[in-house]
């Protein structure tokens, strides 16, 4: 009896938790990003031209501060995210984007890991024992210690 009650409680808690999580994340997000957040997001996606491989948001150099201020100004003027990054791309080329777009020259960067996932999954699936073969010859030797899980 106790266990059945326990399982009911468990399900109830789980469902409530899921409801809270989904409700909170899906329906209670702050409506818009603040201007500051937007500027910061844009700065994070752009490589600092005067620094060593970090974004404008992360660099502590004066140049990065100046550029952050310019981005913030553009945001306040009402420019869209793409217009602002576009301004940087026009001056520095795609080099300034820390995450190349998944098209053109950047395509392989995004496609190869996905191809790797597919190839790996196929390889793992290929290791499954086919029903017609039985090969037990390589079963583990007795030199293996017992483990907790042996059920």
């Amino acid at each position, binding site marked *: 009896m106790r266990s059945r009650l326990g399982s009911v409680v468990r399900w109830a808690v789980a469902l409530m938790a899921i409801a809270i999580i989904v409700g909170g994340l899906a329906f209670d997000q702050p409506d818009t990003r603040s201007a500051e957040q937007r500027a910061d997001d844009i700065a994070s996606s752009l490589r600092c*031209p*005067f620094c*060593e491989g970090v974004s404008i948001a992360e660099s502590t150099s004066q140049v990065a501060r*100046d550029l952050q201020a*310019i981005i913030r100004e553009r945001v306040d003027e009402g420019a869209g995210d793409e217009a602002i990054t576009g301004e940087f791309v026009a*001056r*520095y080329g795609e080099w300034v984007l820390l995450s190349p777009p998944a098209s053109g020259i950047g395509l392989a960067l995004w496609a190869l890991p996905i191809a790797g996932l597919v190839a790996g999954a196929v390889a793992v699936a*290929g290791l499954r024992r086919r029903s017609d073969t039985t090969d037990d010859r390589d079963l583990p030797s007795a030199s293996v210690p017992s483990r907790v899980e042996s059920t």
Partner: protein
Amino acid sequence: MKQRRGITVMLALVGAALVVLLVVFVSRFGLDPSLVASPLIGTNATDQPIEFMEKEGSMSLTDYRGDLVVVNFWASWCLSCRLEHDALIRGADVYTGVRFVGVNYQDTPENAASFLDTLGRSDAFNYVVDSESRIALDFGVLGLPETFFIDREGVIVAKVNGPLNYPLLAGTLDTMLVGGSVESVTTGEVQQRPGG
């Protein structure tokens, strides 16, 4: 045996990848990893106002429409800027029809002034300062020194990464004066901060 074939294919792929890596790395030795080609060649130079460094007021590159313009970015902490300084002064004195703009960048007024006091000024040079990085952004500056050449229509036609020398400066201007096409070059490393 299928498995064996898979492993052989994988080994071949890894081998090929290794060779590619080797070629890529060997091709990189001795190159400065910080230099980036400028997409601004062939576009109009900025029309933003630029503040004068040692006097009140500001100028705009559009004021010089009709003339060739040389825009040089420099700072007192930039070592290569010392190397190219004489070439710039001489160029400004010789090519009187060409406008020279020296943009002081990421510097202090005192250091910049004492740099010029020590190494010399040219009256033909317009010394300006870019205190908020707006002009540097418009020119896509990646390090110092960098020099841009602008034609009579206000279009950026060439860029020099690293220190200028007089033959390069004179050669570029001579070609531009007769209407020929000029190329961007890299003469050396650019510097991004004091000391480094």
